[in-house]
């Protein structure tokens, strides 16, 4: 029992930035063919430690075929609003969904790097029965408990009804039920996040399970059948209040990153590919005069390539699309990091003016054609993908797998899971740390990273940074 709020809860993003640096990272490991159970790797990220850059502990699951993807904490800084009534929760459990199995693991990480262990397993049947949803994805802790977005509806292939968000109890981890009261036109789901004091939520769209589980469906992509809309919600009324179509050619609107300072009524979203020209794009959305708006504010061009250097899926295009698969915003709302998984680039945009992102830094590592080596000498398979930023904004970590079946289409063969780190310069700029290259056990790929004590895509702040 704690007598005061968890010391890793911060009233504002500014206070979170002043907190001590992370010493541990938690990274999901997945077995792409389901031949081994998935796991959670505990990585030492303390530069003063002899184990720096190594996996110091693994929690291996009792089941196979879960396919770990995204995950999140049971509690975060959002607990510091008196409105939630949860000020005395501990940031202690990682909620890890299996995107393929719909099973959810609750992992207790209290007690040091080697103490992480499974606390509870929520079986898929409970998720199906209580929500009618399947394939749980993004986790956020908020006013009513733990919110979980899903990619599938009911039925075997997840197309019986639309996917959506459900809520879990933040203490017992019981699945409570669906979030939506009025979903409006929303029929696909991917990411979601919110502005708590202003009481709105934003959600995005990837595609339905048949469009991703067995690999990207080229015909669906070329006929613009993946998601391309943003949905805006009245958070506590659980009601879709506005839907913005980014245009059907803007296929796969994925990560939603609102400004961390709740005074600011804007945020970003990354679009994987424009089917008219293979560009990746960054969109800025904002609220003005009670309405939401969205505008394309940065584009990343494809790079020409010889057909011989390309996987079958891309041969006909003679180009590598950047494939913007993840974006992440630093806690001071200054730098937006953009993963270009196809071209093998991590970009850093200065978004001090959110309507005019300015490229401030870039490093190349991996890539379909470029295959840039890591400065430490090792080869980095795939491309930069799930990216996470330290609270103080000085270190950026990323891994390299997108999704088992998609990895195999864009990067045939097994290229090895990896996690790397880059240091951020004073006024911007990125430099890869040549001494930090985490290799994962044979047969495993790596996905999302969470940092000890919170990071730049978990915590929601209830008080302004002013």
């Amino acid at each position, binding site marked *: 029992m704690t007598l005061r709020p968890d010391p890793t809860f911060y009233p504002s993003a500014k206070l979170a930035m002043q907190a001590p640096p992370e010493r541990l990272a938690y990274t999901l490991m997945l077995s792409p063919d389901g031949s081994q159970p998935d796991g959670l790797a505990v990585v030492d990220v303390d530069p003063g430690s002899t184990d720096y850059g190594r996996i110091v502990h693994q929690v291996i699951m009792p089941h196979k075929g879960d396919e770990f993807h995204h995950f999140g904490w049971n509690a975060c800084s959002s607990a510091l609003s008196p409105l*939630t009534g949860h000020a005395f929760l501990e940031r202690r459990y990682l909620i890890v969904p299996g995107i393929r199995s719909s099973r959810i693991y609750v992992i207790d990480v209290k007690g040091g790097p080697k103490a992480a262990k499974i606390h509870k397993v929520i079986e898929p049947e409970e998720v199906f029965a209580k929500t009618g949803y399947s394939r749980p994805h993004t986790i956020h802790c908020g006013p009513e408990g733990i919110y979980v977005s899903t990619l599938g509806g009911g039925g075997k292939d997840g197309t019986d009804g639309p996917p959506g968000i459900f809520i879990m109890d933040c203490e017992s981890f019981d699945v409570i039920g669906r979030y939506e009261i009025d979903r409006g036109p929303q029929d696909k789901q991917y990411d979601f996040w919110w502005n708590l004091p202003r009481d709105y939520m934003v959600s995005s769209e990837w595609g339905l399970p048949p469009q991703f589980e067995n690999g990207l469906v080229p015909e669906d992509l070329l006929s613009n059948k993946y998601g391309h809309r943003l949905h805006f919600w009245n958070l506590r009324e659980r009601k879709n209040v506005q839907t913005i179509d980014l245009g059907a050619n803007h296929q796969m609107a994925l990560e939603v990153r609102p400004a961390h300072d709740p005074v600011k009524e804007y945020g970003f979203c990354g679009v994987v590919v424009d089917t008219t020209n293979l560009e990746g794009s960054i969109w800025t959305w904002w609220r003005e005069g009670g309405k939401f708006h969205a505008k394309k504010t940065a584009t990343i061009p494809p790079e020409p390539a010889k057909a011989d250097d390309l996987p079958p899926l891309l041969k006909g295009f003679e180009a590598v699309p950047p494939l913007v698969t993840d974006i992440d915003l630093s806690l001071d709302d200054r730098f937006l990091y953009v993963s270009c998984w196809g071209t093998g680039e991590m970009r850093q945009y200065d978004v001090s003016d959110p309507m005019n992102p300015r490229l401030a830094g870039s490093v190349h590592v991996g890539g379909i054609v470029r295959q840039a080596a890591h400065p430490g000498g090792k080869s980095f398979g795939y491309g930069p993908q799930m990216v996470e930023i330290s609270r103080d904004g000085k270190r950026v970590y990323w891994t390299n797998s997108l999704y088992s079946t998609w990895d195999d289409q864009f990067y045939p063969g097994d290229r090895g899971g990896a996690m790397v780190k880059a240091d951020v310069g004073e006024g911007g700029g990125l430099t890869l740390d040549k001494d930090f290259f985490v290799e994962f056990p044979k047969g495993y790929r790596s996905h999302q990273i969470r940092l000890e004590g919170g990071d730049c895509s978990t915590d929601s702040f209830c008080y302004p940074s002013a």
Partner: protein
Amino acid sequence: MEGTAGLWLAVVASGLYHGVNPGMGWPLAVSAALMERRAGALWRALAALAAGHLAATLAILMPFAALSLLIEWQVEIRVGAAVLVIALGAWILVTKRHPRFLARVPPSRLALWSFLVALAHGAALMLVPIYLGLCRAGADAGHAAAGDLMGGNLGIAAVVAVVHSAAMLSAGGALAWAVHRWLGLGFLTRSWFDLERVWAASLILVGLIALATAGHR
């Protein structure tokens, strides 16, 4: 009359206690001032919180004021109120659960939220035994007619609710202002203590004292 002084002190002290407890809402006033970038928003939020608290206190006290018509049943009413307070304290102590419906209230509706919180956590109910003590002291002072007695008791209920809420407003307001002006948001996490068990225990204690003295003339 020294008994009444003690009871009025309890009305004020409980108001101060509710006011400084972050769970009763003063951080929301700080948030409002920071969000709107002007100090005036702080006072508006505090006024909404105090209004909700006042309404909850009145909503709980008024039925008891009406019950005071039943002069024959005063002991039973006191016992009933005491048992209710003890039961709520015990429930909070055992379940340690926060009612989830409170999280459905939009942040823009602070008065409603404050009203519901004061009801759900027994802040208003805690005043009932204190209030009934004050009514008894008033009744003992002179043998008034039933109508006058009820009018008097309604008046006492209103005064108790106003004094209590004013104490809450001044304590919460002072703290919110100090945090906004000088102490900074870091003070929030340093000063917020989990007093749920203490709170539950104090409900039980107030109920037990009321129970012990219920039969006394």
